[in-house]
């Protein structure tokens, strides 16, 4: 097998482009990219060989045996078992090799890395949410350390999406109702394109993101700062901070009044200071306490005609973040317009 690896390496070296990407492939930005590219070029050269062989023969025959005066077709053998077996067995051996090489590369790509930095990923229409263990939440931009395996644990809240980073050569569908996993290790700091690669509706092509690979020694500070982003917001700006948190609520609560799994925040906003009726007949005034309870203990008071499906955010939101959400709903009209788009 070392012979095979050597051949693969030579072929890859002969054909891969500069570090910034070549003719066929974008730059190699992960430890897996090298393997994938080697296999790609291995198959490419075999393909080029056979393509040239077949087309050359075809053109040669068309020229040499074209129909013209005095040239009738020859009565050659109509079959030749030895020949046919040969061009059956040689391709068969080649494809078995290709399969094996591909399988080995694949196994390496999916094997659980040790000491990986883990991130929870949620795909929804049409953005990506990333949750770090330290509480930092990012939308569409994922900051990860360089030179260390990163493991993504992914799920979708609505339809099937797919997490695709071309420069890393990694892709995995993100399926609702299930967790799927993807890992990568990026040695070089930089910005790498993330695409959604499974059709998911209107803005499928706009569900792009950035993987921000940060130097390992800077990463801890950067991510700690992101976890505490809310501290940067002054009290009177908390509604805006709430808007930044809103993507985590948006799959069930709209801002324009239309109901989904949960009541629209606009409805709650309109009822502020007034009574709201619940499914068990009880009622309470819509105020700070009510919103706080809804976030931390949602099953206690279900609004009439809505299902009891909201998960609790206990332990997932800092106190200041909860305050931001309360202020966001209370001052909704100042932050977003009738359709739910941000003002200013």
């Amino acid at each position, binding site marked *: 097998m070392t012979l095979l690896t050597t051949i693969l390496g030579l072929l890859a070296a002969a054909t891969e482009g500069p570090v910034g990407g070549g003719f066929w492939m974008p730059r190699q930005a992960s430890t897996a990219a090298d393997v994938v590219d080697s296999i790609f070029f291995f198959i490419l050269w075999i393909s080029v060989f056979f393509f040239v062989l077949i087309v050359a023969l075809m053109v040669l025959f068309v020229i040499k045996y074209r129909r013209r005066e005095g040239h009738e077709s020859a009565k050659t053998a109509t079959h030749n078992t030895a020949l046919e077996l040969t061009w059956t067995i040689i391709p068969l051996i080649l494809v078995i090799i290709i399969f094996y090489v591909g399988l080995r590369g694949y196994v390496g790509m999916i094997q659980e890395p040790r000491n990986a930095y883990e991130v929870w990923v949620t795909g929804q229409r049409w953005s990506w949410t990333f949750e770090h263990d330290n509480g930092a939440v990012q939308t569409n931009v994922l900051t990860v350390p360089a030179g260390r395996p990163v493991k993504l644990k992914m*799920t979708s809240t609505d339809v099937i999406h797919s997490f695709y980073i071309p420069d890393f050569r990694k892709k995995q569908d993100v399926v609702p*109702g*299930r*967790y*799927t*996993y993807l890992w990568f290790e990026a040695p070089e700091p930089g910005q790498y394109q993330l695409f959604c690669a499974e059709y998911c509706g209107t803005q499928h092509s706009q569900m792009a993101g950035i993987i921000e690979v940060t130097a390992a020694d800077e990463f801890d500070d950067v991510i700690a700062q992101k976890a505490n982003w809310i501290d940067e917001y002054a009290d009177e700006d908390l509604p805006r901070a709430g808007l930044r948190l809103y993507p985590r609520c948006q799959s069930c609560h709209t801002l324009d009044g239309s109901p989904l*799994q949960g009541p629209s925040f606009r409805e709650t906003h309109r009822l502020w200071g007034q009574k709201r009726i619940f499914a068990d007949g009880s009622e309470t005034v819509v105020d700070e306490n009510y919103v706080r309870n809804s976030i931390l203990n949602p099953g206690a008071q279900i609004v009439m005609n809505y*299902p*009891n*499906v909201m998960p609790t955010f206990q332990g997932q939101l800092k106190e200041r973040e909860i305050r931001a959400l309360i202020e966001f709903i209370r001052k909704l009209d100042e932050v977003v317009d009738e359709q739910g788009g941000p003002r200013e």
Partner: protein
Amino acid sequence: MPDAAPSTPAEAQRSEPHGVGHIVPMPLLIGTGLALLVLTWVTIAVAGIDLGEANIWVALAIAVLKGTLVALIFMHLRWDRPFNGIIFVAALVFVTLFIALALTDTAEYQSDLHPGDAPAVESKLQELER
């Protein structure tokens, strides 16, 4: 492929150039139809009795019996050449293959499913509890 010389009256009838081939006797057709209805009734009746694990096997066994009756008599396989029977079995093989591979795959990722029931299922269950 020319047919071999007919060896049974049924075959003789079938190989007649302008004949309509073997005709299944009407009593047999009606009898089979009734048998199928009876078996359907049995399936429903047994479903009401709690046999635990055995319930699904009983239901499957009756279904296999019914399917066999349909294949042999309604689909005429009992009087057809063995080749037709082979084709039928081949179709079953492909179905088995499909279901086996799909279920094998499903089994592999059971541990990755979201814990608990899906949200809509949850709400349905809770509605029923009330």
